[in-house]
C-alpha cells in the first residue's frame, strides 16, 4: 500500500514537470506519431512485396507491432528511465549517487526500477494499444473472451520477461560502472519488432531461449491471432517467472559488490 502511494507521488511529480510545457508535450506527441509511422511504413513496405511470411500476414504482424509498441511504452514509462539512471558515466552507480538509494528505507530494487517516471510514454502506450485494436479488427475473426484472456496472460508474461531482462542488463553496471548496458538492451529489444518465425532457425533459437527477447512480443501476438499453443503459453509464463527470480538474484549479488565511489 505504501509502495502504491510512493508510486503515485513519484508519478505526480514527474507529470507536473513533463506535462507542464505545452511545446514539450506537442513535441513528444509528434515524436510518438513519427515513430509509430516509421514502424508501420516499414511493415507496409515489407508486405507490399509479399503477402505472407512464414504464416504471418500483415494484420498479424501489425498486431505484433502493436504489442511491441505497447510494451516498449510501458517500459519507457518508469523502468527504462530508472534503470538508465543507474548506468553510464553520469549514472548513479558511477557517480556514487547510488549511496542515497541505499540509504532509503525502501526496497532497493524497487527504487532502482521505479524512481524516474516519464509520463509522456503513456502517449506511446495509447498509440500502441490503438494499433492493437486496429490489427485485431483486421484479423478477420471476432475476439472472444478466451482469446482476450490468453492474450492478457501472455502480455503480462511478456512484460515480466522484459523487466527481468532489462534488470539483468542494468545489473551489469555494478561490475562495469561506466557502461551503458541499458542502451544495449534497448538495441537488442529492437529485434522484438518482428515475429520470431521471421528469423532463420539458429537466430530464432537464440531469441527464444538464450536471450528470449522474441518471446516477449511473439507469444502475445500469437495469442491474439489464435495460433498460440497452450504449451507455448505455459512455457512463456514459466520462463518469465524463472527469469524474474534469476534477475532478482543477480541484482542482489550486484548490490553486494557495490562499494560506493569514494569521494
Amino acid at each position, binding site marked *: 500500500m505504501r509502495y502504491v502511494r510512493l508510486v503515485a507521488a513519484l508519478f505526480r511529480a514527474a507529470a507536473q514537470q513533463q506535462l507542464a510545457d505545452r*511545446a*514539450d508535450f506537442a*513535441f*513528444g506527441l*509528434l*515524436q510518438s506519431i*513519427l*515513430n509509430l*509511422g*516509421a514502424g508501420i*511504413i*516499414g511493415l*507496409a*513496405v*515489407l508486405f*507490399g*512485396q*509479399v503477402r505472407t*511470411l*512464414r504464416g504471418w500476414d500483415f494484420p498479424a504482424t501489425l498486431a505484433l507491432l502493436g504489442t511491441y509498441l505497447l510494451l516498449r511504452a510501458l517500459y519507457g514509462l518508469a523502468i527504462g528511465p530508472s534503470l538508465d539512471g543507474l548506468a553510464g558515466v553520469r549514472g548513479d552507480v558511477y557517480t556514487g549517487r547510488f549511496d542515497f538509494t541505499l540509504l532509503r528505507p525502501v526496497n532497493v530494487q524497487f527504487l532502482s526500477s521505479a524512481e524516474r517516471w516519464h509520463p509522456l510514454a503513456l502517449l506511446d502506450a495509447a498509440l500502441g494499444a490503438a494499433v492493437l485494436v486496429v490489427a485485431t479488427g483486421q484479423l478477420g475473426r471476432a475476439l472472444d473472451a478466451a482469446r482476450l484472456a490468453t492474450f492478457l496472460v501472455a502480455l503480462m508474461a511478456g512484460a515480466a520477461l522484459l523487466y527481468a531482462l532489462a534488470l539483468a542488463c542494468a545489473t551489469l553496471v555494478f561490475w*562495469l560502472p*561506466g*557502461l*551503458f*548496458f541499458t*542502451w*544495449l538492451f534497448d*538495441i*537488442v529489444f*529492437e*529485434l522484438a*519488432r*518482428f515475429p520470431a518465425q*521471421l*528469423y*532463420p532457425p539458429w*537466430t530464432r533459437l537464440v531469441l527464444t531461449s538464450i536471450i528470449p527477447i522474441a518471446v516477449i512480443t511473439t507469444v502475445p501476438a500469437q495469442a491474439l491471432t489464435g495460433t498460440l499453443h497452450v504449451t507455448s503459453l505455459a512455457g512463456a509464463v514459466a520462463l518469465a517467472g524463472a527469469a524474474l527470480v534469476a534477475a532478482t538474484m543477480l541484482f542482489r549479488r550486484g548490490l553486494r559488490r557495490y562499494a560506493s565511489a569514494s569521494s
Partner: protein
Amino acid sequence: MNLRAGWALIGTTWTMRLQTRGLFFIEALSWMVAPLAFLFVWVTAAGSGTVGGFSRGEFVAYYLLLIVIAQVTNVQHEWTVGDAIASGDLNRLLLRPMAPVLDVLAQDVAAVTVTLLFAFPVGAVLALLLRPELHPTPSDVILFFPALTLAWALRFCWSYALASLAFWTSRAGGLFSLHAALLFLLAGQVAPVALLPKPLRAVAILLPFRYMLGFPVEVLSGHLDATGIARGLAWQLGWLIVCLALARLLWRLGVRRYTAWGG
C-alpha cells in the same frame, strides 16, 4: 592545420576507447543489430526466389555492405556536438587553438578505425555464414569510392548543421530523434530504396538521406546502371554543397550567439 595536435587527439581517443574495453564492443555490436534484423526478414521474404529483383543472396550482400559502410558514414555528431553545446562543454573546445571541428574530426577518425577493426571480421564471418551474392562491375567498384567519400562528407556536414540547432533550442535532442526516424526510413535501412513503394521512393531520391548511406551500398552491390550512378553522384554533390554551406552558416551564427550569451 595543427597536425600534431590532431594526431595527439586521435591517440587519446584511441586510449579512451580501449580503456573502457566493454564500451567499444557494445557500441560496435549495437549498430549491427537493426540492419541484421532487416537482413533476416528480407531473406526470409525472398525465400528461394526474388523480391523486387533481389534474391536471397543479394539481400545478404546489400545488408552486410550496409552494416560495414554504416560504420564509416554513421558517426552521429549531432549528438556529441549537440551535447557539448547544451552542456556548455563547447567552451572548452572553443578555447583551444584549433577549431572545434578538428576535435570532432579526430574523434571520427579514431572511432571509425576502431569500429571498422571490429566490423570487418564480423562482416567476414557473417559473409561466410550467410553466403552473399555480389556482382559489381569494375566501374561500380571504382565509382564506389567517391560515392563513399561524398556520403561521409555529406553526413558529417549534415550532422554538424543539425548539431548547430542546439545553439537555439534546448529541445534539439528531440529533433535528432525525428531525424533518425527519417534516416531509418529513407536511407535504405528498412529496405533498399528500389523496393520502397513509388511515392516513398520518389521522396527518398529527393532527400539527402539516401546519399548518406544507401547510395554507396547500391553502387557497390551492382544494382544501379551507369545513369543511375551518375544521377546519384550528382545528387550527392549537390546536397553536399548545400549542407556544407548550411553547416558553416548555422555554425558561425550559432557560435556568435553562444559566445554573446555567455554559454
